[in-house]
């Protein structure tokens, strides 16, 4: 890490820390009273991102800023750690509950097929169509199409595992995949 990078990084971490602490303060106050802390928080964070991009270049600067904000925010969270007595246990159990589903083995198998091969196949179909036909340079088309495969697959996986129905997602995935493959073959 060069001296410039080190200075950019330290300044970025400092601004991110100021920004996240200001946002934390904004959340602890009432809406109106906290507004200026919100503005200060986001201003410090955006300045940190901009500073890193200017001093270390857009690519390295944005990557450094991404790491820095995570670090600063986790530190802010740890600073806000509250120890609770055991007696609040019963009153506080109000976390969101997942939906209860009928647990039939064949529905599990179908869900695995939907989240795995069908979502993956649909994502590959879309990726292929983009890789072949997107109005970009060759390397850009291929990398964009290739990048859409894991993104599309992950989105399909999240959707099919969350949707209580299984027929509709299955049909949509088959249609999307078939359309992608057909379009890429044109």
């Amino acid at each position, binding site marked *: 890490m060069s001296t410039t990078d080190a200075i950019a990084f330290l300044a970025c971490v400092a601004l991110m820390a100021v920004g996240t602490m200001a946002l*934390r303060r904004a959340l602890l106050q009432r809406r109106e009273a906290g507004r200026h802390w919100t503005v200060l928080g986001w201003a410090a964070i955006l300045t940190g991102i901009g500073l890193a991009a200017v001093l270390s270049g857009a690519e390295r600067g944005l990557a450094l800023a991404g790491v820095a904000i995570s670090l600063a925010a986790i530190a802010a969270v740890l600073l806000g750690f509250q120890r609770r007595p055991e007696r609040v246990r019963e009153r506080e159990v109000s976390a969101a509950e997942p939906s209860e589903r009928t647990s039939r083995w064949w529905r599990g198998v179908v869900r695995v097929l939907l989240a795995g091969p069908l979502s993956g196949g649909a994502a590959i179909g879309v990726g292929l169509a983009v890789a072949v036909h997107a109005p970009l340079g060759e390397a850009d088309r*291929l990398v964009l*199409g290739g990048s859409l495969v*894991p993104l599309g697959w*992950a*989105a399909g996986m999240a959707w099919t595992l969350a949707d209580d129905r299984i027929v509709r997602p299955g049909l949509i995935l088959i249609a999307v995949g078939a359309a992608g493959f057909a379009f890429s073959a044109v």
Partner: protein
Amino acid sequence: MSRWPRISSGFVKAMLAGHSALGLAFAALLYLVCISGTIVVFKSEIRQWEQPGAPRVEGEVSDAALANAMREIDVYSKAQGPIHSLSVWAPELGGPWLRARFYADDGGYEQWFADPATGELVLREHAPLAGFLVHLHDDLHLPGPWGRWLVGLMGVAMLSLVISGLLSHPRIFRDAFSLRWGGSKRLQEADLHNRLSVWALPFHLVISFTGAFLGLSFLIVAILAFAAYDGDQAAAIEAVLGPQAGEGTPAADLPDMEAIIADARARGDGQAVRFVSLEHPGEEGQLVGVQIETPDDLVAAEEYFYDGTGTFLRTLGNAKGPAGQQTLSAMGPLHFGVFGGMPVKILYGFLGLASTVVAVGGVTIWLTRRADKGRPAPRWARVWTATVWGTGLGFAAAALGSVMLPVAPALVFAAALAGAFVLAIAFDAFALSRVLRGLTAAILVAAAGAKLAVHPVLPASAWGVTIALVAAALVLALSIRPVRRLVSLRSSVPAE
């Protein structure tokens, strides 16, 4: 700050169900990939810890030394059978050494340290612990492409968990800084899981996406080649990875490497050489690639290609080429945290630990939810405790074994992990966790002590590994004090 966005409780419940099912299905593998990836960030330092006597480079390596290292590994490799490629690694890319490597046609390889002044091969690399950890993260030690594909699938699953986790979190801003400890165990674990997930979101997204892409890249390229290049996989690879070596008879001499390196350096504004490769050495279709540093770019190097006669072909464009090419080339540095020196590696280490804690916490939340609903799962708690802390025990034992035993670290790791499962028969989850943490702490200290007994003089980076081992042991030892019971599984799982 308003609550974002207003989502129906039915939607949140459905998302949580999917998030929970996916997380539980891949929990152990995700944990293994996350924790091994966290350690692998420091693979160069671990290599230095394993071979502290390897010749280190002080200053810049001359073109003549780089070229001679290539000639030396060529001569050495010819006695080993048909060779696929040769490469020379300059310092800073993977460690402070000049290294030369050959890959055989059968997939085998050897790596040597070279004298930085002359390029002469002086010491064969022997870093079994680093190799074990890298393979565990890259392919889970599974054969062929299957392991890499499975790890790629883990990246897809992690990306999917990020999406479903965000969508099942309607109080994402309101709870942005809440970390309530004590009281409800489930709320405590959920707070930790959610805060580390949300605030390390850029890291989780980058790691999971690049991991999925890198793991599945060959599969994706093969499918793209089939559809877009009429099955010509070489053409698809060439479109994104640059010129490829041609097949040919072994009739050609090696090109003049020193002249090629000098030419590439001149094209690269006189910057330092990072890496030199020679594909299909001595064949008519041989191809040279020279990477020259580009300090202001994320990928930090541009690659220049030359044919077997030393004629310049083209640059790859990973530093100054099309956006797609630059994006592709940036995936490795972003995934492995090698774009900002040691400070970024340390931060990647911390954020990798956050990912690991998130992976562990997901299962803990499930266990506490079951216990809260009157359906405790003490056996699953023991299995999960043995998996989590047994893996740590396995890493510690592999580190100690790499110093003291002539046994592959994978075997030592597997034996220690199996031992943890045997102990799970005798102890409940709470006691098992304490026993395994205590054992791990003791073995970590033993590994550090054994290394110092064998190599009293260590380079600074190897000292860093030794100190990290002792620090980890200290944290584990402190965590098993009675006062830490609050964070154990005991409160989540009633005694059997």
